[in-house]
């Protein structure tokens, strides 16, 4: 406090004061067995934790951390995003593609509240994040101080856990706990609130090597009895079906799942988040289930006698009207979160544990099955209503997604936004590797794709698969500012805008269920010139208006390696996503595209 007033009175002393505080700081670190300021403890802790990248934005409450970062040149990279929401989504993209914990650092008040959407998104989709938020000094908390916001209170129901650091001596161990909680069990976001005085106070630095939190534990291996029961149920079933969710990818179980499915000849459907856990080009794959799942996947669900749920949470976008869902199925439910098992549909055989370990326990107990009749039935449904689209010279989004798949052979990470573009991206790409399909499923956050794709690219550190960001013309504007960051870091993102001049998914509902009253969904007169917008951010901008130009546009985009390319596709606005189980309807009431729509 006194230093501040000296500064105000004698501004010429500014540099001297800084220098002397630097000297005092260095002296501090030398004496007393290496006392460090909270800001330095913070940085050393992140280094010790093995953090590779921090997405952040500075401000008064965390200026000390930024200052220390400048002086210490830490081992991790800091990326200055252009909006804190973009930072959280970038950290989510990084976390989902690498399997590591994402890190965000923001200032108090507005910096912190700008993260709320990203934190909620990570909570819904089980993404491990640690979000460090600045806070006003401890003694001002509760005083409506400048840029104060009770972040712990605001985020209580959207975090796995949160910490307010009240003693600088607890800082390092709190950071250790935060990463541990975020990344283990069912992953999720953890907020660590850092009052400014905690960053200025000093303490000895010791980063713990292990953690023990008496109220926190998670199961790993499954109960052997239950697994035996599951194997018996699988052996007895006639029409079994794997229902595979995001937990399979989180736990790294894609390989063992694929082995078991192929060995037992059991078909596989995945959720939106399960895409990539089983190769969709395998004849056993029936694609995605649910509201916009394939006809044949949903038919299989409605007729199966044994549903083997692997890290999936029976979301209402999957089940529709739950009472009428999978009416004939016994259910084996494997999940690491006890609160997820039997939450929506009681399971006949619940198995608590990490699905990778559970499936490895199951593997030696299963036998090859003859599922020929069942597969023949599924193939009939597949030919009844294949995933296809009309080719009539008009530019349709599905054709673009298919062309992207053909360009990459499916070896790409696709990050979709929310809406129709998300569903087409899910339906038409054919995913073959885990962690190559990334989207906001549970919260459905428009504006997710661009920053998340950026996070994926940072995680690949220059190598890795091409990163494709698929957007609608509405959602892409919600975090468009991050394009500048991607350009500044020369990330070769392939940004696709399926421009249908509408908030397409809402328009689809308006057309089907609201008497074609297109209330406030027409963007045609207000959309910017996306090509010029891209160029203004230092990216390459391309526009495509006819199906015959799709290939050339994509080829041109793949020639660019040193910056993002934005491809605007002026698609027709009438195209709808089918099949569709209307909201709240039973899966048997699924609507498909009419004949004329397809051929």
């Amino acid at each position: 406090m006194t230093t501040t007033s000296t500064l105000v009175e004698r501004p010429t002393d500014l540099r001297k004061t800084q220098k002397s505080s630097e000297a005092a700081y260095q002296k501090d670190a030398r004496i007393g067995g290496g006392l460090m300021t909270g800001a330095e403890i913070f940085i050393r802790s992140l280094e010790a934790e093995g953090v590779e990248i921090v997405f952040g934005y500075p401000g008064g409450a965390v200026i000390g951390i930024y200052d220390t970062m400048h002086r210490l040149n830490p081992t991790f990279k800091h990326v200055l995003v252009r909006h804190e929401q973009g930072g959280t989504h970038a950290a989510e993209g990084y976390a989902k593609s690498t399997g590591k914990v994402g890190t965000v650092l923001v200032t108090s008040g507005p910096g912190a509240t700008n993260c709320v959407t990203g934190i909620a998104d990570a909570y819904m989709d089980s993404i491990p994040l640690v979000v460090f938020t600045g806070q006003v000094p401890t003694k001002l908390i509760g005083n409506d101080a400048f840029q104060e916001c009770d972040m712990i209170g605001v985020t209580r129901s959207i975090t796995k856990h949160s910490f307010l650091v009240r003693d600088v001596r607890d800082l390092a161990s709190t950071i250790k706990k935060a990463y541990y909680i975020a990344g283990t069990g069912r992953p999720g976001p953890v907020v660590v609130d850092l009052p400014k005085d905690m960053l200025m106070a000093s303490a000895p630095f010791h980063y713990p090597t292990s953690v023990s939190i008496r109220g926190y534990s998670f199961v790993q291996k499954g109960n052997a009895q239950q697994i035996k029961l599951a194997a018996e149920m699988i052996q007895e079933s006639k029409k079994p079906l794997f229902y595979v969710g995001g937990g399979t990818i989180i736990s790294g179980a894609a390989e063992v799942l694929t082995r078991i499915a192929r060995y037992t000849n059991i078909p596989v459907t995945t959720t939106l988040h399960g895409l990539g856990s089983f190769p969709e080009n395998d004849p056993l794959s029936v694609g995605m289930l649910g509201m916009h799942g394939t006809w044949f996947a949903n038919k299989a669900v409605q007729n199966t006698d044994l549903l083997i749920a692997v890290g999936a949470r029976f979301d209402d976008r999957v089940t529709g009207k739950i009472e009428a869902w999978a009416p004939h199925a016994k259910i084996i439910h494997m999940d690491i979160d006890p609160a997820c098992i039997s939450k929506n549909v009681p399971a006949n055989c619940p198995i608590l544990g990490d699905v990778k370990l559970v499936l490895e326990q199951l593997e030696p107990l299963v036998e090859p099955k003859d599922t020929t009749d069942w597969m023949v039935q599924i193939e009939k449904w597949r030919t009844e209503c294949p995933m296809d689209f009309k080719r009539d010279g008009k530019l349709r989004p599905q054709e673009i997604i298919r062309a992207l798949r053909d360009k990459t052979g499916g070896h790409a990470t696709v990050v979709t936004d929310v809406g129709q573009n998300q569903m087409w991206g899910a339906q038409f790409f054919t995913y073959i590797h885990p962690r190559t399909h990334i989207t906001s499923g549970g919260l459905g956050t428009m504006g997710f794709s661009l920053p998340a794709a950026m996070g994926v690219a940072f995680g690949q550190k220059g190598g890795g698969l091409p990163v494709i960001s698929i957007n609608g013309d509405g959602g892409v504007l919600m975090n468009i500012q991050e394009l500048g960051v991607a350009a500044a870091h020369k990330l070769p993102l392939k940004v696709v805008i399926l421009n249908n001049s509408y908030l397409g998914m809402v328009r689809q509902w308006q057309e089907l269920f609201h008497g074609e009253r297109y209330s406030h969904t027409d963007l045609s007169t207000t959309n910017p010139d996306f090509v010029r917008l891209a160029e203004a951010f230092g990216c390459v901008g391309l526009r495509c208006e006819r199906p015959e130009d799709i290939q050339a546009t994509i080829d041109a985009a793949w020639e660019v390696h040193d910056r993002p390319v934005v491809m605007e596709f002026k698609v027709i606005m009438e195209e709808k996503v089918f099949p569709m189980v209307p909201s709240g309807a039973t899966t048997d009431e699924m609507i498909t595209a009419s004949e004329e729509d397809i051929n």
Partner: protein
Amino acid sequence: MQTQTAGMGLTPQQVFRKQAAGESIHPDGQDVLQRHVLTVLVENGLGALNRVANLFSQRGFHLESVSVGEAKDQSLRRMTLVTTGNDRMIGQVLRQLNNLVDTIEVEDVTHLDHIERELCLVQVRCSASERHVLIGVVDIFRATVVNITPDSLTFEVTGPPAKVNAFIGMMRDYDVLEVARSGRVAMRRELAFEH
């Protein structure tokens, strides 16, 4: 457009699911809602209490009463929660409570041998001439007089919630000025002579 509609009637699996959830299998039947008493050991501190209370509003669970106090271990607090729901809902309450990092132990004592007590203060308008009548009534409940003024009496009664309810019921005949209930505290009973 092609559509398909589901038939009526429940499949065996649907019957299993409804029964497992404690839901009625008859179209216009009632779910079986039950009152459950849970004891929860939590970390000491406002954060932990907040998280437990918040869970109930966040998840839409019912919360009838809460009581909190020190546990044997000074760094912990014991909470007693009373909630209602069918089997599926209660299962969720227990598992979600368990999932909180701040909870050390969660137990549904409803069907275990346990002791439940509640404390209640009741203030009644009462002139000097009525006192002996009223005190006669409260003696039956082993309530005690904890405050007295020329025109009021305040009683303290402790016991199982049913007794407290009965006591408050009896007091309705008089001019009740104020009631304060502690909410239940519960604990599993140690059995010394089990056979």
